């Protein structure tokens, strides 16, 4: 241990290393102990040797430290383990101290300091190197598109090699709406996959199979230049589209879940009360989802979650899967479903930003979200001020050291989901370690 201190707001009290108090002659760390509350109990034995005035001043400082922590001041235990510049810190929630029995003035007074802190240490925010077709190892803002065809990429990946820490670490996102002044962003949806380096292939509407009245409509304003149009007038639940998914693409994904996001063409023309659900076959039926009522007001919509079978596919790959989309509309008449594409998002991490009333991310603004700290907020570059406009939903993005990760994003502008929308993102993380020497 090179240096150990406690920091309250801007004030620092150094127990060990440069800057320690005059009367403080020694500091011994005991092995930390896990508490039932989930916090860690850190015990420090301090040896005080000095004049009575110095000792009194030091004890007074300790007492102040206890009180300020109790009053809710932001308190951190700061530790520099060795000569490397890395300084770890752990948030402190409670402090107490007492005399060590048997310690005498001549040899020095012993004080046992007990701190309840987070059960991990973390480093300051560090930029993550992002990769996609727009750049490699980019740390200062990587372009993300609103499509995943030949004209853009709505995802990026992070290589696990070189990631610091030994615990999952929260990721902070900055989404800079700085490329496309035409539209403000409304809904923003992020999927996060761990131990993967590419997303699952997009299911194109025009590539689907159907036993119904189905056709491919070429349309340059659609994803991959076309969409699939299926029509039916059966009032029962009916299979409308299906896709074959190569089993090899799901290596290591047994038991995980993927969340489909659909882009519809002209949802306003959809017959009201159309419900969709999934059936997934891997030889036999392995999963049937709940049903989801389609909105007539959004091109981009979330569909029911798909649970992948739990049969391990780590060593031997699955045979191909068949994913079937069922529709149910009990009203009389013909339903026309114009489906552009289905994006399968990983759900190892999830963040969904729903605009609050009158909220949006306007051109020039930056959305900042650190899931474990506070609600997302918008940073206004021109005025250097922050404001709230979004509700964040989902467990957030968590980085597993040593694993590759994929971040998938889709946004809309309210009713429409412009495919030519793009923006920059930056990701940061605070490497975490359970134990430090």
């Amino acid at each position, binding site marked *: 241990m090179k240096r150990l201190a406690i920091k309250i707001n801007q004030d620092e009290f150094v127990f060990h290393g440069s800057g320690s108090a005059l009367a403080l002659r020694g500091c011994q760390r005991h092995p930390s102990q896990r508490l039932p509350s989930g916090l860690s109990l850190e015990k420090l034995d301090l040896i005080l040797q000095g004049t009575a005035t110095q000792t009194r001043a030091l004890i007074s400082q300790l007492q102040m430290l206890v009180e300020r922590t109790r009053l809710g001041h932001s308190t951190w235990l700061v530790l520099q383990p060795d000569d490397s510049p890395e300084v770890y810190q752990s948030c402190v929630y409670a402090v107490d101290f007492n005399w060590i029995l048997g310690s005498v003035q001549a040899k020095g007074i012993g004080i046992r300091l007990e701190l309840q802190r987070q059960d991990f240490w973390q480093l300051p925010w560090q930029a993550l190197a992002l990769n996609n077709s727009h750049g490699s190892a980019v740390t200062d803002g990587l372009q993300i598109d609103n499509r995943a065809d030949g004209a853009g990429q709505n995802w990026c990946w992070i290589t696990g090699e070189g990631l610091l820490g030994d615990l999952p670490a929260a990721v902070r996102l900055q989404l800079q709406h700085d490329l496309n002044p035409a539209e403000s962003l409304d809904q923003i949806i992020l999927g996060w996959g761990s131990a993967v380096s590419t997303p699952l292939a997009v299911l194109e509407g025009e590539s689907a199979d159907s036993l119904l009245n189905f056709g491919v409509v070429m349309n340059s304003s659609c994803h991959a230049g076309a969409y699939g149009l299926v029509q039916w007038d059966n009032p029962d639940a009916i299979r409308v589209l299906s896709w074959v998914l190569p089993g090899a693409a799901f290596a290591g994904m047994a038991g995980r879940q993927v*969340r489909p996001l659909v882009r519809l063409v002209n949802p306003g023309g959809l017959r009201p009360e159309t419900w969709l659900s999934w059936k997934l076959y891997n030889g036999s039926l392995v999963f049937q989802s709940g049903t989801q009522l389609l909105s007539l007001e959004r091109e981009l919509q979330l569909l029911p979650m798909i649970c992948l*079978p739990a049969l391990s596919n780590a060593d031997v790959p699955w045979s191909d899967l068949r994913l079937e989309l069922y529709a149910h509309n*009990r009203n009389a008449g013909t339903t026309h479903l114009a489906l552009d594409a289905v994006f399968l998002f990983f759900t190892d991490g999830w963040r969904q930003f729903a605009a609050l009333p009158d909220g949006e991310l306007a051109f020039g603004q930056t959305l900042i979200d650190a899931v474990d700290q506070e*609600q997302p907020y918008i940073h206004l570059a021109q005025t250097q001020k922050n404001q709230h406009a979004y509700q964040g939903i*989902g*467990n957030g993005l968590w980085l597993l050291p040593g694993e590759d990760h994929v971040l998938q994003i889709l946004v809309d502008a309210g009713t429409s989901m412009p495919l030519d929308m793009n923006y920059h993102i930056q990701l940061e993380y605070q490497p975490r370690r359970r134990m430090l020497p």
Partner: protein
Amino acid sequence: MKSQVVLAGNHLQGMLQSGADWQVQSMDWRLPGGSNEAVISTPVQDPNAISLRMIHSWLGQAVSIHNPAGEIMWHGWIEEIHLDVQRLRFGWTTQKLLSRVIARYPQASPLLDPLSSWLYTDWVEHLERLEQLGAKEALLSLREVDPNKARHAAVMQLLQQGLDDSQMLVLLPQKRAPQLTMRLKGYWHRLDWTLDGEDSGLIAHLPGGKSQQSFGLSGSERLAQSFTTGAEAFSLGQIGLRIAMLGAASDELRVKICADNAGVPGTELTSSLLSNVYLQGGWRWQAWLLDAPLALNANTRYWLVLERSGALDTSQYYEVETDDGRGYPDGECKRWNGSSWLLLNQDLRFSLMAVSETTELMREVAQQAVQGGVLQGVQIWQESGVWLPRWREVEKTRKEALEEWLALGCADESPLSALVNADGVLEVFRLPRQIEPLLQLDAEGRLRLPYGIADAHPLDLLGRRMVLPLMEAEQTQVVRGLRWTGEGLEIVDS
């Protein structure tokens, strides 16, 4: 599973770090209904910083609980709030709150109205609370026949009791760290806040009763009363008349509904027979039920024709009560004398009730709840084939009415159930729900799927069939209740 609590509106976040700081203690799901109850709590750093006035405003507000992947697992509203400070527990609840009250009192003469023995006051409303909380209604039933007292009682109920949201102060057995706890209820329970009632579906003329007309004898073979439907089509299912038998007739009474043919009964559209058994015992309101509802057009004149099934008999015949006073403005009464229809200067006392399928009634009640902002939509997946009168007096809550209709099931005897889904849409469906593959209950009470997936959405698990351990695959039960605690998801009712 780490759940995320989302409180509706920024104003609820207030002085608390909302969202991640709220811990879900438990949540459960039931049929019918879906999301049932949940308990969430959060530590409070400084109780003095909490505005008790703000806590009041949280009551009734929406809360959703999301799973890590962002899906809404449970959603409802805040029914009860507790604030623990050292040994004191403060509490607030919506249970006694009211924004609208109506009172009813007995009819002076129940014979006047075969449909209800009550008269109702106007609604008494508290506008500020109505604005803040929405409609939370109560019905007072009084024994005294006094409309003024009934209205006064409704006002007093609203002003004296309906504004009280505080619970008794509780002294805890020992000191506790300051904490806020909220008990939440699912949106199905919000349907208990409003009373059910329907004015439409009734064409009736009930005044009178001191005059009668004979029929079933020579010179007065049949009686007919014309009536006019209102602005909406009318699905007739039940006809009521006040009848007595004179002598000991043994035949039955037939009511026919006929089209109008230039002011007299024309083509017969349907008919119904009333068994002689019901005609014993003197004057009584009798009901003729149609085998199938008869669709009557809007704004159209029809006739109901009353006749006996047996031969005319001057010593054993029937009488029906009429009104010789105020008169029915939308029709007239005629007597068939054997050769022609003769106009009578009276009207029959009659009631015609429209019927609807129970699932249609559910749809209408749910749509009212949609208009009130409680539900987001309604989807009927299965028609019941069971028909009931549309007209209903104010008596039950919407939840009670829905549960009663669901309990009747379908005409083919299959059970019906309903739940409010994650998007706030009420879905009505046949049990069991046809979602495959079959669920399996393991010996520890956890639900499994054949391929090991056990974390499907709880609302998607409700109503599904499950195979029990040690049972044959055919011996399945339906999942009717689930509960989540820190230990995981477990089945609580089947």
